[in-house]
């Protein structure tokens, strides 16, 4: 597996200090003109304090969304005729940079608060009960598209591996160096799908082969592709976009 040469350890990484610093720099530039123009003349122009308020409001919004989240409320499902053709490719890189993971040597790694941490092959994942859904993928940018995904109910998988279902977070590490994490309530939602297929075909690389996590109850950036490892934890794991300022809960 090529990706492992550059990323020796995918499980539980310690605090990502460099990224935190990068993120702060990003924001210093990010707040820029608008904020300064708006708040000029006041002492509130200090970007750090403004950013502190915005970050804590974002955390407040995480809590508000967790409270709003209804574990029994299903995302609308659509007829197959409503599927968006072609379903758009989207990532933090261009389509020419899509990672290709080797199916034969693929092993899903498990760690953290899980009883059975044996790695899973694709054949083993495909042998679990399968289901499918035609749902709307909503991007944080404002566009949306309808697609058909098939795979294993994530709650089924979590029960099978003996995950601690009272833990707070599930984190994901991906072959394209993407990473993100979700709340347990969403993980157990009936439409949260360990996705192995798109439009009844094996998930193509551009949609996240060998596996993505599909959650119609969350924005696109919360749906990781090319998942190589997952871990159950009570320590906040953050995420690629979340560490730069996207809202962590990202619920829809």
């Amino acid at each position: 597996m090529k990706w492992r040469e550059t990323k020796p350890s995918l499980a539980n990484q310690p605090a990502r200090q460099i990224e935190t610093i990068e993120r702060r720099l990003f924001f210093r530039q990010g707040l820029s003109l608008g904020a300064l123009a708006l708040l000029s003349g006041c002492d509130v122009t200090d970007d750090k304090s403004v950013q502190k308020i915005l970050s804590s409001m974002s955390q407040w919004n995480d809590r508000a969304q967790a409270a709003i989240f209804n574990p029994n409320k299903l995302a609308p499902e659509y007829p197959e005729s409503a599927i968006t053709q072609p379903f758009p490719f989207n990532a933090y890189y261009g389509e020419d940079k899509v990672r290709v993971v080797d199916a034969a040597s693929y092993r899903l790694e498990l760690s953290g608060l899980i009883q059975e941490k044996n790695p899973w092959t694709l054949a083993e994942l495909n042998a679990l009960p399968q289901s499918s859904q035609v749902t709307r993928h909503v991007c944080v940018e404002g566009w949306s598209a309808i697609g058909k995904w098939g795979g294993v109910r994530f709650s089924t998988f979590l029960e099978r591996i003996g995950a601690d279902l009272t833990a707070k977070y599930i984190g994901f590490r991906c072959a394209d160096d993407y990473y993100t994490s979700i709340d347990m309530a969403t993980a157990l939602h009936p439409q949260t799908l360990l996705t192995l297929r798109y439009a009844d075909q094996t998930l193509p690389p551009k949609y996240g082969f060998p596996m993505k996590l599909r959650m119609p109850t969350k924005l696109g950036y919360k749906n990781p592709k090319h998942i190589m490892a997952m871990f159950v934890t009570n320590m906040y794991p953050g995420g690629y976009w979340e560490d730069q300022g996207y809202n962590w809960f990202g619920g829809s």
Partner: protein
Amino acid sequence: MITDTTTRSASSDYVLVHPLIVRATHWINALVILIMILSGWRIYNASPIFDFKFPNGITLGGWLGGALQWHFAAMWLLVLNGFVYLCYGVVSGRFKSRFFPIAPRALFNDILDALHGKLAHHDLTVYNTAQRGAYVAVIFCAIVLVLSGLAIWKPVQMQELTALCGGFMGARIVHFIAMALLALIVVAHITMVILVPRTFPIMITGRTRRSS
């Protein structure tokens, strides 16, 4: 007890036009609306629904993530402040006494007068019909903005609201149109304040000299 009917102030030469709660909510709202619109333009730019973008230089947030942070922080203040204002307006009877009636013919004539630059503002304790129409329209726009905003933010948890807006894209369009209408009224509002500058200090002090 809360009363509104243009209360006499202590020194009887002055009348209270805008009680403190109206002035406070007005200025908080002015700031919040500015933040919401400027950050909203940046969010719009990430995936425009029409054939144009807003110049990034006049938006707030620096990038999509920053704009979203501003938007979703300020929304709480918008709703909280708006709730206080609406409750006060209804309970005090201010809405009833100041905003109504709005006779369609008078509204039409007033807007026509305003466009010709001869809208009467003799008595600042009474809103003319153009003002009444504009202020009621602002409240209406704000309510539509909050509801369509919720529909965009929570198309699953609040899917009934999203469906009411005509789906996810419909909600984005409704949100945009309500913003455009609100921005238009704000521009007209500021223009009128510039044309009739003695209305401005009243929104700060709340009082004006009794008209003869």
